[in-house]
């Protein structure tokens, strides 16, 4: 390897390792928190931190844009010195949210975390979205709340249910988790959706791809989530394509998380992949070689 090749490899590695995935995960968690607080404060004049979270999201968006500019600048430098500007490792952001978070083990004498009190709130909305009632065992007020579930594992289960078109399984999988595990789906799915949409379209999703993605996914999402407001899917697709999100009525905080997980399953199914490809340790799936490939229309 020549000195120049070595320099190029080092710069590509630096570009690939820029924390765009972490910033995306942070941004989605902030959006999820904002949705929740907005839901709480609908009739209150107290802002409960929502304007500050809006500022935080804006800063995170600017940081993500600055990271992309840095990647472009590195690519421009590589091209200027006669090396390919394409990063070597491909888009790895999608793996970031799927990695199991490494939480410190609780101290042996530590009290167990308090049980979550949002279980019935979560299950009620899941029922409204999917049309599937929660299992009888969870409907009693005294039923124990589910513990924390690995959100990436939940996403794989949801994707499996979507792939088989099994709405009852989808409902069961969503009813079986705590609200915090379910709401965390928003953060996990965001980079995955962008990657899957890119694979389906044959290029990085752009603002003018909104219609194509909508026609590829809307029908199937609607059939699995008959109770989901259409604006939720529109907003998700707009974010994937980095297009302006439609202004609309406020939605339930669970809607975005659930719809995003189902959209992930629909795009996976469109690509002919199964849920195991969402394992962060899975090998890189083959991308479509034909840049002109168009996603088939839903319906």
């Amino acid at each position, binding site marked *: 390897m020549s000195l120049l090749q070595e*320099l190029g490899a*080092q*710069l590509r590695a*630096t570009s690939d*390792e*820029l*924390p765009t995935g*972490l*910033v995306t*995960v*942070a*941004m989605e*968690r*902030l959006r*999820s*928190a*904002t949705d*929740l*607080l907005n*839901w*709480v404060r609908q009739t209150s004049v*107290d*802002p*409960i*931190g*929502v304007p*500050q*979270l809006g*500022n*935080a999201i804006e*800063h*995170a968006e*600017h*940081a*993500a844009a*600055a*990271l992309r*500019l*840095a990647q472009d*600048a*590195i690519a*421009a*430098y590589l091209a*200027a*010195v006669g090396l390919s500007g394409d990063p070597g490792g491909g888009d790895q952001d999608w793996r970031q949210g799927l990695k199991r*978070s490494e939480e410190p083990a609780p101290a042996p004498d530590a009290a167990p975390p308090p049980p*979550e*009190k*949002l279980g019935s*709130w979560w299950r009620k909305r899941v029922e409204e979205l999917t049309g599937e009632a929660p299992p009888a065992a969870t409907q009693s007020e005294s039923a124990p709340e589910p513990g924390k579930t690995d959100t990436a594992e939940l996403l794989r289960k949801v994707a499996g249910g979507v792939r088989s078109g099994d709405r009852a399984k989808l409902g069961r999988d969503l009813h079986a988790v705590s*609200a*915090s595990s379910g*709401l*965390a789906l928003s*953060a996990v799915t965001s980079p995955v959706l962008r990657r899957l949409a890119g694979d389906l379209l044959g290029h990085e999703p752009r603002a003018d791809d909104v219609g194509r993605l909508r026609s590829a996914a809307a029908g199937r999402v609607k059939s699995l989530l008959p109770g989901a407001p259409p604006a939720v899917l529109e907003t998700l697709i707009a974010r994937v394509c980095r297009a302006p999100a439609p202004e609309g009525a406020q939605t339930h905080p669970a809607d975005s998380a659930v719809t995003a997980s189902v959209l992930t399953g629909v795009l996976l199914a469109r690509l002919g992949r199964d849920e195991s490809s969402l394992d962060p340790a899975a090998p890189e799936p083959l991308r479509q070689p034909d840049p002109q490939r168009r996603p088939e229309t839903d319906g």
Partner: protein
Amino acid sequence: MASVAEVRAAVDAALQQVTESQAAIQAAREKLGEAQQSLAAALDGSANDAVGAAHASLSQADQQLEECLGATLLAIEQAQTYTATL
């Protein structure tokens, strides 16, 4: 019908998301610092405009993340003040 316990639980769940976002931002800033060092070492002495642009963008990203973190701290403080009044 919603209870104070449910409102508090919803705010707590939101704050949990904010805390997790803070952890992601901290981790991103660490990786960003490593990238800045790596870039500085590899491109020491370069006068190429793209190199200056890359350095400037990384600095800007770090500054935005720092301000993001500051905003989340204010948000947490305000939400906790609110739940204390419930």
